[in-house]
């Protein structure tokens, strides 16, 4: 059974490129364009094995999405990675406090991304 990765980013190119990389590696990928749409999918019953989210997005950003997702039942220990252009320590700390599992800075090559995913998704 393929693991489900939920990808949240407002950039269509990002969604396309990361989705392709993940699907080629055998994962099932769900996508959303911002935090609001992502929350709608999660509350509607989507149960991903991993969430990868951008930080700067319209309507609802990544930090708020992580906080809200963590509050959902069954999402307390779900790995959530950020994938953003932001790299400053204070922003990383914000992400960590919100409940992110790890912080990735764009651009990330396919091999590197898969390596990190394997670390947070054991047995995948």
């Amino acid at each position: 059974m393929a693991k489900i990765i939920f990808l949240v980013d407002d950039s269509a190119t990002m969604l396309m490129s990361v989705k392709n990389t993940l699907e080629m590696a055998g994962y099932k990928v769900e996508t959303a364009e911002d935090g609001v749409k992502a929350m709608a999918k999660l509350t509607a019953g989507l149960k991903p094995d991993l969430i990868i989210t951008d930080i700067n997005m319209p309507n609802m950003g990544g930090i708020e999405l992580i906080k809200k997702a963590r509050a959902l039942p069954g999402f307390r220990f779900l790995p959530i990675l950020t994938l953003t252009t932001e790299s400053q320590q204070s922003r990383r700390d914000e992400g960590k406090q919100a409940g992110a599992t790890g912080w990735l800075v764009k651009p990330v090559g396919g091999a590197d991304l898969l390596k990190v995913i394997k670390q947070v998704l054991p047995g995948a």
Partner: protein
Amino acid sequence: MAGQSKNNRIKKDANNILFISISIILIIMLMSVVFYSTLDAQLGRYQNIAILSVVALLVWATQSRLLKITQKPFRFISDEPVEITNDKLHYVIDRLSAHVMQGDTTQDFVKTNFSEIEVKLIQSMQALNTQINSIIDLLKSEILDDSHDVLDANIMQLASTLTQYVNANTAIEKALRDNLKQTYTLLLKLQTQLEFLTQSSVSTQSLDIEEKRIHNLEGIVETHLLVDKAIDQQLQVVTFDTHQSALLLLDLMRHLSEDAESIVQYIANANEKNVSKMERDMDNSVKFIISIEQFIQKIQEIPDKLRSDIVSIQAASGVIDGLAHLVDSIKEISFQTDILAVNAAIQAAHAGEAGLGFKIVADEVRKLAVNSNNAAEMIEMGLEKARHTIQDGLKFKFLDEIMLQMDSASQVMESVKQLQEGQEDMQQYYKTLFAVINKNNTKLSHDISEVLGSIQYEDVVRQRIERAQQVILERNELWRQVVEQLSTGEVDGLITQFNAVLSDYLTKESYHNNSMESSDDGPSLKFELF
């Protein structure tokens, strides 16, 4: 540049003071001559001096452009004559305002271009994605010849899109730079004029409020230049990123193309070298199979043949046995004939001379009996011989058959062996082929994945330009306020706002990864698990 123009101005001021002073001296001299000439009756003594003075004054006035100087006492760097009023300032600000409007057009250009690039990139990636899937399908179905051209076409298309992307980025970068350059030139002019106005305000003892407004404007201009400098630095990063990503993508494209090429090359070579051999093997296999079929048919035929042979043997034996009975009957008849002949001879002897002739007949009959017996013996022997011959014949026939069948069997064994070898060869061939395809396919997937990863640069660049766009919009809005408030009220609050825009922009930029600076910190910053 500003210092040089200041020096020029000081020189010009010194010249002005010099020729005004000389003019005054000459006028005083002329006045003195006129005055003394009225007092003294001897006018003629001073007349020559007066005429000389007037001529000297006229020559001086002409040479020193005195007339011009009185009408246009100051000159600006813009080489356009202006009054020492706020009109020029308004004129420059109007131009600046117009330029700001032009800036909006640049924004639209940037926005449109980026949307187009994004759409094109997505289209290319979709095409590439479809192609990758079709290649994988084709690899599974082992038909690759056509797919290579399609892959090539797609790679070419993607490469061309990337070139467009790079060109468009360069165009955007150039447009933004031109925009900044124009703003910078205009602002330098404005700054120079403000310096003049400050000086003229001091020299003409203008109001303190006017001076303060001008200082405020100078502050705004300074901040504006800082904002532009910050944007310019980010644009350099954008250019750097774009070039880096383009180089990376092109390199990866090359890898992709090589991977695809090597798969197709391998398969093409494999075909050339092995297909004919495989065809021969296949032909041979078909032959082997036919001979096996024939052998099997023969094996199936054997029981029928055996049965018919046995029947023939039984029939032949029956006939021989029947003939043997006849021989026995002949032997019996010849025996009885012999006894009959003996009895006849005895009876003939009893008859005496009368029986002499009869005795001769009896002897002959006896001879006939003996001959019959001999003949029967001979027939028996002949039959025995015939039986042997039949049996021997059958024996030889079986042997031949067996030899033939043994021969076929060994041929079949050979065929089976060859068939097996051929199959092993084919298995090995396909094993190697698929190992190579699999290896290349994995490499292809890896390279494609890396290409897709590096397309993320587009997002990084887009965000950086969006932030630059945002700060230009905010700055332009502040300039509009400057233009509005310049004639009506105070502008000192705007400096704070300008500084806030700059600091906000710099803070936002500092949050983001700078690819030109982060090379030392490298990968540790790229990825962190909490």
